[in-house]
């Protein structure tokens, strides 16, 4: 049986990759993928801890996270498409009209 620590290590790795990706990427879709990666890292933590403690609450919470992630993906992609139509670019650093 795989010990708990391995699961946690994998999820920590995934989370770090996601977080670093958000930092360094300029492409909006890449940032978006990285955010999904972070979410799933958290999901993995929740599921493995749920199995470890024998508490289904963690698994239920994962479903909620997945639902929210799906909704967020729909909205996020719509925004990205709309930005691309207006600016012919997916570089987030160029979308800065709010700045004075």
């Amino acid at each position, binding site marked *: 049986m795989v010990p708990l620590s391995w699961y946690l290590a994998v999820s920590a790795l995934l989370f770090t990759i996601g*977080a670093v990706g*958000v*930092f*360094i990427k*300029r492409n909006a879709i890449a*940032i978006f993928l990285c955010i999904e990666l972070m979410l799933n890292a958290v999901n993995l933590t929740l599921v493995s801890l749920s199995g470890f403690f024998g508490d289904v609450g963690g698994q239920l919470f994962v479903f909620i996270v997945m639902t929210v992630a799906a909704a967020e993906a729909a909205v996020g992609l719509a925004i990205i498409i709309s930005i691309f139509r207006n600016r012919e670019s997916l570089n*987030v*650093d160029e*979308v*800065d009209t*709010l*700045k*004075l």
Partner: protein
Amino acid sequence: MMKHPLANIILAPLIGAAVLGLFGKRMSERAIGIIACSTVGASAILSFYIFFGHASALENGDKIHEYLFTWISVGSFRADFSLLLDSLSGIYILFITFVAFWIHVFATGYMRGDKGYWRFFAYMNLFMFSMLTLVLADNFLLMFVGWEGVGLCSYLLIGYYFTKDFANDAAKKAFVVNRIGDFGFALGVMLLFFKSQTIFYFDDPARGIHGAFNWAMHQSTDPIAWSAIFAGGMTTIAVLLFVGATGKSAQLPLYVWLPDAMAGPTPVSALIHAATMVTAGVYMVARASSIYKHAPTAMLIVAIIGAATALFAATIGLAQSDIKKVLAYSTISQLGYMFLACGVGAFAAGIFHVFTHAFFKALLFLGSGSVILGMHHEQDMRRMGGLKKYMPATFATMFVGWLAISGVPLLSGFFSKDEILYRSFTAQGLPDSWAKVLWFVGAATALLTAIYMTRLMVMTFWGGERFRDSEPAPGADSTAGAREHHGGTPHESPRSMTVPLIVLAIGAVFAGYVGVPAGLSGAAIPNYFEHLLERSFASNPPELVSPAVPLEVPDQHSANPSIHPLSDEDRADLQADQKTEITLTIVSTLIALVGIGIGWVSFKRQPLWKPPRLLENKYYVDEAYDAAVVQPIKQASRGVLWKFIDVRIIDGAVNGAGVLAGLLGTGMRYLQSGLARSYVAVLVLGALLIIGYFVIK
């Protein structure tokens, strides 16, 4: 036979209104006329059937309750949709449905060719429903439903020609002025409920209901004092209810809407603004007689307002040149008579005058409608004259109405008016010499009534044929009505209009014979009308009521319904009264004849008499109200409510919220760097700080 006979009386016109309102637009005029008349006719037949089926019970003062359903029940408050038939409401439904039926028949001819034919009859039927609900209700709240319903129908029918500004203005005026009165009425009912814990009229053991009037009979009588009005007792209730009556029945100071209401079609003026709706106030005061009997101050107010209105409106009626305006002021004046009667405690005489007035005033209004139609929509009497040759049937029937309203002996108006004058002369329980003053005002009004009605008849039917003159009469009132068909020879109206006139003329002659005053006939002819009604009213004058006497003790008068059994004491009283009554009758007969004589001589010679400006302009009351009430409200609305509260405060708050949000946003923009990854950096840093805090701790 039927489970709910009384409900059918009020439902028949409602069904007619619903059918005509929903499908009438596609029907032929003939079908519309048949539906409208037959539903009201059904109501009339049913009313007669029920009334005469229960005549002896009604004479004994029995009250027939008909419970349909409980409408509202909250805590100790209860209002039922339930109907009550006693002699008072019985008499009302008889003459309402009878007169209304013939007015509907008349209207099928009068309204011919009008685009809104179906709409007109739908409103008329709806009015009948409301009026019958008002009369047959067995509690104040249901009465109020009918009360507001007739007000609504009145509004709709005054504004029937809604493309004309003056009709819309008149409709709004009627509605708003009535609303002032209704406010008083509603307050009166609330105070009554507060005091008596019930809004029902009478006890009904079958439903376990206590009646407000049964409660009122056990209260002590308020003293005669102006302070009693504000004491929150019986007098306050009575005065508040009377405020409602002054609105609906067009008494001083709320009478101003009725003359303008003549903007509606003439059958409406006849039905609503002469024969039925405007007498609702009298009905309500008579219905609440047991409250008024315990509030002598309120009675005095009713009598004074009634007498003042009678005289006031009669003087204005003398100076109007629009044939319908004359009749409108005449109606106000006659309504004043009815209140005078109620105020001096002669409720039966007041209702008797309502009854006879319904016939002769409906007749006069329909006659004027026939004249207006025959004259191609001309209402100005200065352009009439000599019409008796052209409109013989209209002339003959209006002739009867003229004599009846003037009080010529042996016609209906004579009996009822004479009874009222006699009762006010001999009124008990009023402060000194008030009775004589009230009688004098009433007598002066009777004289004026005879004069202005003679003027109307002379200007319309006798004299030169002024409609042939091409130039307008001097100072012609240009707002009086539609003039598009001017010109041409006057013509008699169709059969559908003359038959109702003839029927009502017969009523105007004979309606008085059901209530010949006892003093005149020496009690040989029983005063059936008064006898029928006496059990509907609080029976004793206020000073004789001891708080312990229950209402339901039968007195000797009602033991035998057919003849008046008189005790010796009564007989002695009667003989003394008889002398006074006969003297007063001779006086009032002379007054009527002198009035007709004065009118005949002066207006035959000078039909285009120029009345004093003060009278012609109706004492400038409309102008005074405009200056005192309308303009201040308009100015305050414009200056304060619109320019200040709406523009400055409300709009200012809304716009201010927008401006504030904008300013806040502008300030927040300084926080934006525009670099997405720097936001992420801040986010991660923040998350690390929070996690770090918990880890270290």
